[in-house]
């Protein structure tokens, strides 16, 4: 399923135009992204669906697999999704 498919299905269900629905879906995804990027309250909890959080990865010593040279990998933040109980059960049904 792509975003276009999602827009079409949501539009049919809530009786909005496809154009309006696309604005809505972009706004949902954008607000999740923004929430995750903020340093303080970096989490989004969607009841019945799951939660998005950011996990910190420490800097580590890596290696260029091609040249074998050691490289320093900087610390980074990784978006992480944890499915809720309901969604977990649904997927495994």
């Amino acid at each position, binding site marked *: 399923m792509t975003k276009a498919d999602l827009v079409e299905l949501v539009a049919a269900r809530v009786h909005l135009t496809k154009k309006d629905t696309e604005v809505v879906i972009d706004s949902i995804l954008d607000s999740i992204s923004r929430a995750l990027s903020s340093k303080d309250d970096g989490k989004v909890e969607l009841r019945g669906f799951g939660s998005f959080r950011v996990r910190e990865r420490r800097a580590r010593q890596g290696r260029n697999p091609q040249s074998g040279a050691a490289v320093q990998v900087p610390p980074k933040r990784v*978006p992480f999704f944890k499915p809720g109980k309901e969604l977990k059960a649904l997927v495994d049904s």
Partner: protein
Amino acid sequence: MTKADIASIVANKGLTKKQAMEAVEATLDILKEALKKGEKIQLVGFGSFQVRAKRARKGRNPQTGKGITIAARKVLKFKPGKALHLVVNAGG
């Protein structure tokens, strides 16, 4: 941030609060329905959701030390998209 917070941001796009909440719920419902069918969802820029099958494996109850079999199951995996990765690492 919760569903209600997202709905109020969505409402700023010219919908009523009620319409916005309905649209948010409908979006999540449709995603759930697709995942239930095992469909992969790819939202460019945001990320993708995919159902993956895990094989059964032998585990151990860490409390009793007893060996147990963990049944095969399906789990949901989210892979963040490039744009989301960049936003999260921009340090806002």
